[in-house]
C-alpha cells in the first residue's frame, strides 16, 4: 500500500517561494511523473515527499498517515538519485543489502533479497564489484536494486536517467516500466523530459513555477490540455500557436495546432509560407515553414514527402484538431 497525499504544501527557501501551494493525491500503485521545465519545483516537491526537505506549511500523508514531521528514514520510501549516490566503499552486494542491514534483518533474509534483486536487475555477476568498476547503466541498476530490497511503500525517482546516453536511456526506461508492472508499487518519477513522462506515466503532473498546471493521464494531457503551457510542453515537436485574425475566426484569443495535425499541400492552404528547413528522420519529416504573420510553424509529415528549402507550401489544420485558448491562455 502506498498512496501519497499532499495538502496545501508550501515551501520557501529563505525569502524565495518555490512551491506556493500544492495539493495532490497519488493513488496506490500508480506511476506518477512530475514533469516541467528546470526550476519548476519538481525535484523540490519530490524531496518534500521524501522528507529530505521540510515543508514550510501544509501536510504530507503516506497511506493516510500524517508524515509531515517524520524523518526520511521512517517514511518507508525508497529513492533513486540522479547521481546514483551509491556507497563507494561498499560492493554491489553491500550497497543493495544496506537498507536491510539498517533494519537489522536476519542474514538469510538479506541474502535472499539481494540475490532476488540482483537476478531481476541482471546484476548477479557483479555482486562483488565496487561501484567505480561499473558502467553508468549498471550503477543505476544497483541504485534501483538498493531501492527495491526493502519493499518500500513507494519509489521516488529523481531524474534517474539523465546521466545516461540516449540508447541506454531508452532501455532503462523500458526496464523501469517493466519493474513497475512487476512490483505494482507506487512510483513517483521526476523528469524534465516529456517523452519519458508520456511513455512511462499512468498520470502526469505538469509543473510550472511551483504550481500544478494539469494532472491527468498522458493522453488526456495530449488531447485536452488545460492551458497553453501544457499544450506547448506536451508533444514533440511543440504545438504551433497562432494569434490574431485566424484565431478570431475560431472565436479564440489564440489557437494551437500540433505539427502532426497540419496537412501540407503544394497549393494554397489556411496558411501559406516558405519552407525554411526540412528535417528528415526517415519515418517522419519535420518541415519548418516561415508563415507571414504567424512566424515559424512546424509540421510533421510522412518520411517520403519531399519538400525543398525555399518551396512555397500551404498548411491546413485537420478538422476538429484546433485547440482554442482565451487571453489568459486557458483552454476554451
Amino acid at each position, binding site marked *: 500500500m502506498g498512496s501519497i497525499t499532499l495538502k496545501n504544501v508550501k515551501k520557501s527557501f529563505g525569502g524565495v517561494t518555490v512551491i506556493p501551494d500544492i495539493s495532490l493525491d497519488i493513488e496506490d500503485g500508480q506511476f506518477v511523473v512530475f514533469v516541467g521545465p528546470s526550476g519548476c519545483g519538481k525535484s523540490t516537491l519530490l524531496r518534500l515527499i521524501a522528507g529530505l526537505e521540510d515543508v514550510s506549511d501544509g501536510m504530507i500523508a503516506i497511506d493516510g498517515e500524517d508524515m509531515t514531521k517524520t524523518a*526520511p528514514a521512517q517514511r*518507508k520510501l525508497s529513492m533513486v*538519485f540522479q547521481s546514483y*549516490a551509491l*556507497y563507494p566503499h561498499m560492493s554491489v552486494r553491500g550497497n543493495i543489502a*544496506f*537498507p536491510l542491514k*539498517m533494519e537489522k534483518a536476519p542474514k538469510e533474509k538479506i541474502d535472499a533479497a539481494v540475490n532476488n534483486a540482483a537476478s531481476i536487475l541482471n546484476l548477479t555477476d557483479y555482486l562483488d564489484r565496487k561501484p567505480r568498476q561499473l558502467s553508468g547503466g549498471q550503477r543505476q541498476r544497483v541504485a534501483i536494486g538498493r531501492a527495491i530490497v526493502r519493499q518500500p511503500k513507494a519509489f521516488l525517482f529523481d531524474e534517474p536517467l539523465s546521466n545516461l546516453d540516449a540508447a541506454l536511456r531508452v532501455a532503462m526506461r523500458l526496464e523501469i516500466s517493466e519493474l513497475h508492472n512487476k512490483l505494482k508499487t507506487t512510483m513517483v518519477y521526476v523528469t524534465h523530459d516529456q517523452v519519458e513522462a508520456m511513455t512511462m506515466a499512468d498520470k502526469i503532473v505538469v509543473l510550472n513555477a511551483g504550481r500544478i498546471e494539469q494532472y491527468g493521464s498522458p493522453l488526456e494531457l495530449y488531447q485536452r490540455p488545460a492551458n497553453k503551457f501544457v499544450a506547448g510542453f506536451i508533444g514533440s515537436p511543440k504545438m504551433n500557436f497562432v494569434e490574431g485574425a485566424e484565431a478570431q475566426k475560431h472565436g479564440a484569443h489564440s489557437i494551437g495546432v500540433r505539427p502532426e495535425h497540419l496537412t501540407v499541400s503544394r497549393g494554397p492552404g489556411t496558411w501559406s509560407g516558405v519552407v525554411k528547413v526540412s528535417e528528415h528522420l526517415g519515418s517522419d519529416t519535420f518541415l519548418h515553414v516561415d508563415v507571414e504573420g504567424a512566424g515559424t510553424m512546424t509540421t510533421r509529415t510522412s518520411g517520403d514527402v519531399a519538400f525543398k528549402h525555399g518551396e512555397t507550401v500551404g498548411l491546413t489544420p485537420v478538422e476538429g484538431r484546433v485547440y482554442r485558448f482565451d487571453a489568459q491562455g486557458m483552454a476554451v
Partner: protein
Amino acid sequence: MARAISTRRKIGFTILAWGIGLVIFFPILWTFLTSFKPEGQAIAIPPRFFDFDWTLANYETVQSRSNYFRHFSNSVISAVGSTLLGLLIAIPAAWAMAFSPTKRTKDVLMWMLSTKMLPAVGVLVPIYLIFRDLRLLDTHLGIIVVLTMINLPIIIWMLFTYFKEIPVDILEAARMDGASLRQEVVHVLTPMAVPGIASTLLLNIILAWNEAFWTLNLTTTNAAPLTAFIASYSSPEGLFWAKLSAASMMAIAPILIMGWFSQKQLVRGLTFGAVK
C-alpha cells in the same frame, strides 16, 4: 588524441627531471655521506664523495654522548600528541563548516589561515612569557599545545577540503535507506572520511616532527625533541659536521621510514583538493 612527443624531447625532459630531483635530494644525500666520514674529511676541500674512510664512529659518539632515545620519544609524544589533539578539535570544526556552511564559513577559514601569515617570531616573546608563568616551558604538554595551535589551521583546511568532497546525495541516500544518525555516521560517513583523516594525520605528524622554531625555543632538556638533539651538535666553537650529520640522519630516519610506507596517503594529502 595523445600528443606526439619526439624522442629527443623525451630524453631532454627525463634528464631535466632527474637533474631537478637530484638537486632537491642532494642535501640529504650529502648529509648521509658526511655522517660516515671522519671529522677531518668531512670538511675537506675539494669535497670527497665516496673515496673517504667510511666509519661508524660518529654514530657511536652521538649515541654515547647524548640520549637519542629520550629525544626520540619526546618527538613521538609531541608529534603524535599534537596531531591527535589537533584532529580532535579540527574534525568537528571542519565537519560543521563542510556540512552546514553559513555565509561566514569562507571568512572563518580565511581567518584561520591568516594566523599562519604572521611570522612565528612575532609572538615568541608573549608566548614564552605565558609559558613561563604557566610553568609550561620544557614540558610535553606545552609543546603539544603549541604544535597543535600552529598546525590547526592546516589540519582544518585539509579536512574541510576532504569533507567537502563527500557528496551530500550519498548521505541523503543513507537517510532514505532507513539509517539512523548513528548508523549514517558509522556506516557511511566515517568510512568515506577515513582516507582524508589518515592523510591529514600523516602529513601533520611530519610537520610536527620537523618543527624546529618553537621546539628549540620552548624546550631545554625534559621535553626536547630530535630537533633539539640535532641543534646540540651545531656549536660555534667546534666543527662537528660529521657528528651533526650523524645526528641529523638519526633524527630524520624514523619519519623518512614512516613517510616511505605511507607514500600513497601522503601524495593524496599533499595534492589535496587538486584532483576531484
